[in-house]
């Protein structure tokens, strides 16, 4: 588990992270989203113990990374947005160096290299120089280097930027596989459709503050419903606002979207109550909320509230 408390980070003249607190559950893939300059890269670099914040606390499996950054490097794999490779080394040498530098004994190098190239589909490129790889292959090699020591936490900053759709899809498959192997992933990206393929949670950062941190719709115990009325009717708001099992409510006089129980009987009771109150319902449907919508809704709500969630 990653537990961040009251994290503050300053650049000259700018507060990049402003009292950031959140918890990332084990075995999740959290999408770290937010506009440019929101503080995503700074947050990832703080979590990777590459930058020292002004104040705050970061616990990784209970270990305070600010107190002992070196110890936590064994637990973390990190891929920077501007990652680099040793261009003149072969893929095998790059992975061997990564294994050596993470303290893996010599007699296990071949084994971990084999595991990495299998995971990243680089087996046929082992003797090629890193400098001669394609963009997608370079990205995969960089990820292979980051996971060579099988870290508990993998932090990835824009891992799919510049990749073609096929390479992005194979990356999504890889991330899900790594999660199934017990890793916890935090992935920052601008490409929300790409994150949607594998993310279980969403962490929204804006102007250095967390404005939303929640499981994505598909990972919640309930479902997402949409009700449309033929004409505006006040009962819609009245009924939905007072029900305990309604969450994430976004309502106008003629339309509402909200999280609700997946139980058909519960859904029937809600529909019946609305009809009994005379609401002119023309549509009552389950809606698959995508990451893009969730993000935009969060940003919109935050803008309306004008504050921090």
């Amino acid at each position, binding site marked *: 588990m990653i537990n961040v408390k009251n994290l503050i980070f300053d650049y*000259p003249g700018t507060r990049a992270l402003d009292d950031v607190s959140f918890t990332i559950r084990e075995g999740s893939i959290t999408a770290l989203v937010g506009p440019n300059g929101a503080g995503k890269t700074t947050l990832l670099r703080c979590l990777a*113990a*590459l930058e020292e914040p002004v104040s705050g606390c970061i616990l990784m499996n209970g270990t305070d990374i600010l107190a002992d950054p*070196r110890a936590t*490097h064994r637990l973390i794999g990190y891929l920077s947005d501007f990652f*680099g490779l040793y*261009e003149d080394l072969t893929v095998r040498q790059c992975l061997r160096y990564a294994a050596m*530098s993470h303290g893996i004994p*010599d007699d296990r190098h071949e084994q971990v290299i084999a595991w990495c190239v299998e995971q990243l589909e680089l087996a046929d490129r082992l003797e090629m120089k890193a400098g001669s790889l394609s963009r997608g292959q370079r990205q995969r090699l960089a990820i292979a280097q980051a996971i060579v020591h099988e870290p508990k936490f993998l932090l990835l900053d824009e891992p799919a930027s510049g990749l073609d759709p096929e390479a992005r899809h194979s990356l999504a498959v890889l991330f899900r596989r790594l999660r199934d192997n017990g890793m916890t992933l935090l992935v920052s990206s601008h490409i929300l459709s790409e994150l949607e393929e594998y993310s279980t949670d969403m962490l929204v950062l804006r102007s250095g503050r967390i404005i939303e941190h929640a499981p994505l719709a598909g990972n919640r115990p309930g479902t997402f419903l949409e009700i449309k009325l033929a004409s505006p009717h006040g009962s819609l708001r009245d009924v939905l606002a007072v029900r305990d099992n309604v969450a994430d409510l976004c309502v106008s006089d003629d339309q509402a979207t909200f999280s609700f129980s997946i139980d058909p009987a519960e859904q029937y009771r809600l529909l019946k109550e609305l009809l009994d109150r005379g609401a002119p319902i023309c549509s009552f449907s389950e809606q698959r909320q995508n990451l893009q919508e969730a993000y935009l809704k969060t940003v919109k709500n935050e803008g309306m509230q004008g504050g921090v969630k």
Partner: protein
Amino acid sequence: MSVNPEFRRNLWLEISPFRLISMPVVLGAVIYLAYVTDDNQMAKGVSSVSAGLFFLISMVWGTKLASESIMNEIRDHTWDGQRMSVITPWQLTWGKLFGSTVYTWYGALICICFFGLSATVCNPGNILKTMLVLMLSAVLAHAVSLLASLMSIQKGRKFNKSQTAAMLILGIVVAGPFMNIVFDSGTTFRWFSENYSEIDFLLGSVLAYAFWAIAGVYRMIRLELQMKNGPWLWFCFVLFMMLYGAGFFHGSQQVGSYAMPASSPAFFAAYCISLGAIYVMAFAERKDLLSLQAVVRLGSAGNWRRFLERAPRWILTLPITVSAGIAVLITADTANSDANRNIAFVVASLLFMSRDMGIMLFCNLGKNTRRADMLFVLYLVLLYGIFPAILSAMKVDNATLLFWPRVDLHPVLVCVAALLESLAMATLVVLRWKKRIAE
């Protein structure tokens, strides 16, 4: 036993069968040319050419590679990977220092073997010592340029070609004088009233300096790996330098052009060295608002351990300098009528130093700090060079007490001028600090 990962990576990159063959072929050809042109003798011609090649390969080429070893990692975005590894700071230190230069060491060792075989000195012990001095000089040059690049990283993670050249020149300038050993002038060094032969003294000195430079690299790499450093090694280095410098003046009557008959020149030299250390670190370290704020916060919270780890070394050197100044005064011969001049010099130089540090802070607390250090240099040139020169040219020499700790003028006047400037600068710094904090 597992080989240092960083060293092994450098071996992969630097050593290939072709390179292993080409180096001795090229060097062998050049040295053979020297041999045949020197009447087929392994004598002075071969010795000079070998020493020259050693200088070019180890001091110029090797120092360039050492200074670029970290810069290239930053430029190629691979440095974060190393910082996140579990390679120890010591492994990274010697992996970078000897790994990045491994190929030049291969060539340098060939050259030094020919130098040893062709040396005209009869004493085999001295030949070995000379070879040792040459090799340690190269290590010193590499370590100094690597240290300079690491210090530069701490200030900002961008490099340009002029910085690389500066680090190369710095390494050569620091270690170059030890290379003079090949000329074997037979000079003796007098240090703490003892006479030492040139070779023994240079060997001891270069060994000590190489140790300190490598220790500096090690400490800077620790910082890069997010480990904390106390100031103790820095204090030891400053004290070593003070002692080393004082040794030359022990028993002498003056330090440079300053005749200080009322005090011990050795203490006076030590004081000047500690003063110099403050200026060196003032240039070398980060001085931005954020890092200074962090230090002030730690001090205010009474977190002294963290304060000592984070505080700029130039600030921490102040107590040593003040103590050395007091030692100069204590050791002064109070019966001597020049004692007041000593007091004036020490007090005024401390006040001028605080004024200069004020200027440095004032420049670095501005909104645009990109050229703050250059601005600081410019002010120093104006204050210590141009303005006094103008006053001298205008035949108002006495007015230069505004810029220099003049020992030939009335002590009170000298101190008051320095005090007023120091107070004025302190006020400006406090005002700018408050303004920036409020923003």
